[in-house]
């Protein structure tokens, strides 16, 4: 049965950043140079072809974009300037919006104005809510302890609820991703054993980004990415479990704050490195920046700096300033997390490890099918 092409997809993807795909004439240099492409996942060439031909369904169920860490070798080798690396990046954005069941992701990726409005509305709501809450219940001259303007117990509760909602959204979207990958009638059907066998891959890839390491020989970005992830996770643990200690003071609690300082340095350092790279276009993967990339980095810097600032204000004995900066900090944190985690760039924290896990499962399912005497599905690599 012939697959119907959708010629309009190419225009759609251009909005997500893939503007040069049609220049590709399929020499295959990109896939040859890619350290991650193999006989099961021939990328970037194959996804590029599917995109050129508008094979929407094939793209939708493809895991390949997530297996790419954008080392940029493919784009450098491309004789046509078709930017395969950037195309894979754009496909990740497109897939993120496809996985999202609410449709918000698509709206935000396609409209920079809509995203800005969402950020502003969320920030304003957060600001007003926290301010009113503080004015009603606490004293703006108190930062921590009894009668605090924003008591850590209340913020803690808020953090946990938000985390719950976001995790649920991300989980639903991840389920959708799984359905897209294995949902087609003619696709491979893995059994339970295959799913269980590869389960350890999820935490392994989540914590180490080990696959990125093989690109690292070339650009060292893996280390910076690892630093960033470690800093995030440290900060997450501190906020979710040690918030009361974090917020207490004014004396410094070295057992907890040491981690906080390290994480802050890691976060700010890595983010500034990325911002500088994108501004100066120092690397292949920094040549093209989608609006969503800038927004993400700017919000990160803002959140990290306001976090540091409230800490300093509190320790320096300016509780009013500390409280106000705290509200400003939350006005950054809430939109950033609400927008980025389920709907935008940050969702890759779930999709990437999940894709690698599903790719391993899919490979087993394909091998199982071909050993049953069915057609050979993947071309063999020539030894």
């Amino acid at each position, binding site marked *: *049965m*012939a*697959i*119907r*092409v959708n*010629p*309009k997809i*190419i*225009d759609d993807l251009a909005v997500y950043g893939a503007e040069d795909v*049609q*220049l590709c*004439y*399929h020499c295959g240099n990109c896939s040859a140079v890619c350290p991650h492409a193999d006989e099961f996942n021939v990328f970037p060439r*194959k996804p590029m*072809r*599917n995109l*050129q*031909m*508008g*094979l929407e369904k*094939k793209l939708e169920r493809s895991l390949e974009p997530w297996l790419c860490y954008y080392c940029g070798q493919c784009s450098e080798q491309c004789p*046509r300037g078709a930017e395969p690396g950037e195309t894979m990046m754009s496909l990740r954005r497109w897939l993120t919006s496809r996985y999202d069941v609410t449709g918000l992701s698509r709206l935000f990726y396609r409209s920079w104005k809509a995203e800005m409005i969402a950020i502003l509305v969320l920030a304003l709501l957060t600001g007003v809510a926290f301010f009113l809450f503080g004015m009603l219940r606490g004293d703006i001259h108190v930062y921590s302890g009894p009668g605090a303007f924003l008591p850590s117990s209340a913020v803690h509760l808020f953090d946990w609820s938000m985390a719950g909602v976001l995790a649920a959204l991300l989980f639903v979207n991840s389920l959708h991703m799984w359905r897209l990958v294995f949902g087609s009638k003619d696709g491979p059907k893995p059994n339970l054993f295959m799913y269980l066998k590869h389960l350890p891959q999820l935490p392994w890839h989540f914590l180490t980004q080990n696959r990125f390491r093989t690109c690292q020989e070339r650009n060292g970005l893996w280390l910076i990415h690892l630093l960033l992830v470690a800093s995030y996770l440290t900060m997450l643990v501190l906020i979710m479990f040690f918030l009361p200690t974090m917020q207490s003071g004014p004396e410094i609690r070295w057992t907890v704050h040491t981690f906080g300082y390290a994480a802050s340095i890691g976060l700010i350092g890595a983010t500034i490195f990325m911002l500088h790279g994108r501004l100066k276009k120092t690397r292949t993967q920094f040549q093209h920046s989608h609006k969503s990339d800038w927004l993400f980095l700017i919000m990160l810097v803002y959140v990290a700096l306001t976090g540091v600032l409230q800490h300093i204000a509190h320790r320096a004995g300016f509780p009013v300033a500390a409280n106000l900066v705290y509200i400003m900090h939350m006005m950054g944190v809430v939109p950033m997390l609400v927008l980025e985690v389920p709907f935008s760039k940050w969702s890759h924290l779930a999709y990437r490890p999940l894709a690698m896990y599903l790719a391993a499962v899919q490979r087993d399912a394909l091998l199982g099918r071909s050993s049953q005497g069915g057609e050979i599905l993947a071309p063999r690599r020539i030894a």
Partner: protein
Amino acid sequence: MKAKIGVYICHCGSNIAKIVDCEAVREYISTLPEVAIARTYKYMCSNPGQDLIVQDIKEHGLQRVVVAACSPRMHERTFRAALQAAGLNPYMFEMANIREQCSWVHDDPQAATEKAKALAQAAVRRVVHHEALEQMTVDMCPNTLVIGAGIAGLTATLELAEAGQKVFLLEKQDHLGGNLARVDLTAPYLDSARDLLIERITRVRSSGNIELLLNSRLQQLQGYVGNFTATLSRTGHDGPGTGKIREIQVGNVIVCTGYREFAAERVTHFGYGKLPDVITSFDFEKMLQAGRIECCDGTIPKYAAIIHCVGSRSAEFHGYCSRVCCMTALKYVHEIKSAVPSCYVSDLYIDMHAFGKGHEDFYRRTSEVKTMFLMFGKGDHPIIRSAGPKDDCKMLIEVNEQLSGELIEIPADLVILMVGMEAQEDAMETARLVNISQDKEGWFIESHPKLDPVATTTDGIFIAGTCVAPKDIPDTVAQARAAAARILARIAKGKIAVDAVYAEISDDACSGCRICNELCPYSAIEYDDKKKRSHVISAMCKACGACVAACPSGAIKGRHFTDQQILAQIEGVLR
């Protein structure tokens, strides 16, 4: 009197000397009684090598010369010139080919040396019987007949006329411009075909040296290079002068009869003629010239598809590539995209041939306007069918796409078939009239495909443009100008030399049986009704020898290939 012969054995660097013992050949040859002098030399064709011959002729009074070296095709003219420079008749020369026919094809040095001796001896035996021959010259009529007024014919005509020569421009249709007049823009620079033609047509019409013969055909061409008589007739239905016959005198003829488009009806799987929105590239050109791209019902297409190689590069129709269709297809993409920017264009090709100047760049620019390029396999052609009522398109094209390996279905409202070029339907008649040959596809054959691409095997008949093979405008124009330049050079000389080697018929021995008349591949033999004898038009004879061998009366003699010469040569080989 015993002939004084000089024999020169060439080493050809090591080409000959590495297998043939040249010194042994020299020693053997110098024992022959007629040989006055025998030498070996590293490169006989070099200036010192030729000087050796000239000096020996002058010092030793040599009367005949043999060079044992490469093929006469390579250097016979070189050595004949050396003889002439030394005051000898150039035909008192014979070449023994001990390279292509000996050293290059054998690996046993001893046997090869023996063969070289035999070949050299044969040449010596033959040259003894050579006669001094004189080259003839004939007058060159400065008028030229150009057949076909497409871009090739117009260009050649202008080139000749603007050099001050009289040109008869013959065109079977009632207008100038040929196939190019049916084209809108040209690839890869998207300039107008009309602009290219109008300027030329205006110059042709205003030139005093050009006689324009529209609605006219060639009926007969008689004579030989420099002296042709062309019989022309007026065609057309009931216009003035229909059927009128006219004779003109010309020295040369350029055939620029062009191509005709492949008939798309012959390919059944594309539904041409059944699906109204499947059209050929020429139908589309008409649409472009009219200024509106539309489907048969007047709607603007949302999806357009272009299919390459229709009739070309297929086992069923023509095996060759029509050369211009790939770039024309890319041109269509640009024309569609500029007229209907919202239209999605897919381009279905077998291979993208972007070989010319600016073509690769043009291909790239076509990619930049987001063309969906799809590759199909030779012999695995796309299939077009009508779409269903739910589809947002009129047709669906099913194709086994090669770069992805997927069987896909493409929406299309308008399908353009890139029909190839084929030889004109009257190409065979034209070839017969002017006595030139056609290849298996019907294209006219050049004298040499690389080194002599505008001349033919018939002296005085030149070919240019797409009647030779499919080609684009720059190549056509270059060929037309080359043909004109060749003719201008001949006209400038005023006379034309005819080789002294040709067949002669003895009036006394000829029985008038006319066997040779039909046999001659160059139409060089005429029958004289009054004398009841055949005679050879020496200017047209190529000395192939067919008539000499065929004549039952032994009345025909091949000059420079007499029985005596050939038999002596055979005796020499056999020793």
